[in-house]
């Protein structure tokens, strides 16, 4: 079948629906904007349809609530909540990093600690609240402790996994250059695992945020979680929405900052091949 002389051959293009097929960046950002805008539009329309603001507050009401909240100490709530999450996460990291490193490096340590950690991991942090109140009290330490319980055990296992992924050839190369075991840990395993560890810290920070509301169940009188809980009691659904959105936004911001830090910290990883 010969092509008609009047038409020029069209360049063939694989369908955008083909598996793993790339798409133009304009299309990607267009679709991403739609993906974010669509729920907003659905929310707007649904709120119009349902007159009851308790069941579903409109975006306008939520925005108004944020504005009111701003004048009523929103930044203070944001600050105290951020402090609790970050401190809980940081204390987790303080213990999880060395412990995970040891578990990932020495099999005896892994045998001793990993099954226990695996088991505790499944215990719900919420259930620890009464215990924490008895053991730690009801001040800031108690909130931080809840966040720690929710974050630490997952973190240890992820750190151990990151450490185990260091290629054996890198370790053996150092050994055949005369490195002692501590030198291998310090000069090969840790630098090699650092990018994965930073990623683990970023992901676990996200999880730590999800424990905020649980933590602020423990006799809090400030914070985003506390505000959500109080709003729940008074059926102020718009404030609940506002609180949840604020937590989400802060989490997103921190996540993006940590991604940026990753790109800056490891130029060798992001270097063009």
């Amino acid at each position, binding site marked *: 079948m010969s092509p008609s002389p009047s038409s020029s051959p069209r360049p063939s293009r694989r369908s955008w629906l083909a598996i793993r097929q790339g798409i133009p960046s304009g299309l990607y950002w267009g679709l991403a904007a739609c993906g974010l805008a669509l729920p907003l539009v659905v929310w707007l329309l649904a709120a119009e349809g349902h007159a009851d603001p308790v069941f579903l507050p409109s975006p306008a009401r939520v925005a108004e609530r944020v504005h009111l909240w701003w004048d009523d100490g929103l930044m203070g709530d944001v600050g105290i909540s951020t402090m609790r999450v970050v401190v809980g996460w940081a204390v987790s990291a303080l213990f999880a990093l060395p412990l995970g490193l040891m578990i990932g490096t020495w099999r005896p340590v892994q045998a001793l600690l990993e099954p226990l950690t695996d088991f505790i991991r499944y215990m719900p942090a919420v259930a620890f609240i009464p215990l924490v109140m008895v053991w730690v009290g009801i001040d800031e330490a108690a909130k931080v402790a809840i966040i720690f319980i929710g974050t630490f055990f997952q973190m240890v296992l992820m750190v151990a996994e990151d450490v185990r992924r260091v*290629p054996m*050839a*890198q370790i*053996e*190369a*150092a*050994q*055949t*250059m*005369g*490195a*002692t075991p501590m*030198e291998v840990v310090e*000069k*090969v395993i840790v*630098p*090699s695992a*650092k990018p994965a560890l930073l990623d683990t810290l970023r992901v676990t920070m996200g999880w730590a945020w999800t424990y905020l509301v649980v933590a602020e169940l423990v006799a809090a009188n400030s914070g985003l979680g506390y505000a959500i809980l109080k709003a729940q009691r008074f059926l102020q659904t718009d404030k609940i929405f506002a609180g949840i959105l604020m937590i989400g936004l802060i989490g997103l911001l921190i996540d993006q900052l940590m991604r940026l830090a990753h790109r800056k910290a*490891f130029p*060798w*990883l992001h*270097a*063009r*091949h």
Partner: protein
Amino acid sequence: MSPTANPTAPSQAGASALGIQCTQLCKTYPGAKAPALQDVNLTVQPNEFIVFVGASGCGKSTLLRTIAGLEAFDQGTLTVGGQPVTGPGLDRAMVFQHYSLYPWLTVQENIKFCRQLQAHTAERTSADVEDAAGRADALLRLMGLTHVAKAYPSELSGGMQQRVAIARALMSRPPVLLMDEPFGALDAQTREVMHDLIQHVHRLERTTIVFVTHDVDEAIYLGDRVVLMAPRPGRIDSVHTVPLPEHRTQDMKLAPEFLRLKRQLLDRIRDTSGMKTDLDLLAQLSRSAADVASGATPL
């Protein structure tokens, strides 16, 4: 050390090449059906370039790693320069097939890596410190890496990465250099270049090289002697002295002595590989090809 001295030549204080002695070496992995190494007896002369070759599972990598001290052995004795091997050490540097370079360090930093280890700083004098910088530069030049000294390994091709790995291993002037199929992942042209490069290195550096490969051409081209190993159980089948002059050139790969030894080794590998199913398949295919040719059976 005088500034006019060749920085790649061994320093007076450094060790010269060492020999390796294995006697009745045995090793079985727990749960394995056959020993990985059985009654291995081998003497490697100082400054020799010896190659282990054989089919997969013959124990050549296991033997190399045992000499490196990365694997333990169950019976027999193993000494390097008269000293028993109890673990890895800076006297036996090793080049791996891949993934051994440190991606967070530049080429230059990778090569100089050993200098930050205790084992190397123990008896450092100011002369050694000066020597180190000169040695690193000399190795960069020797390996043709000067133009990428500040690049990261991920920016380099496979061949260049292996050159960095070799330079890094040579930095401390090891008396023994162990190479585990270092060119296996490289394309044919790059491999040819690496062959001549490693020969050049062997001539300049006084080091015993133990080289593992599955490629018979490579084994004959590079080695003073070729140790043919066989699997199940892993053992030395035969040791062959390569009948070629010390300085090898690419055209020797077509010389009758080369081809004769190659044929001998390949036949021996086939006989000892125990790959009956592969040979049966070949026989069956040639029978059916003959049938098709004679018109007896359609394909």
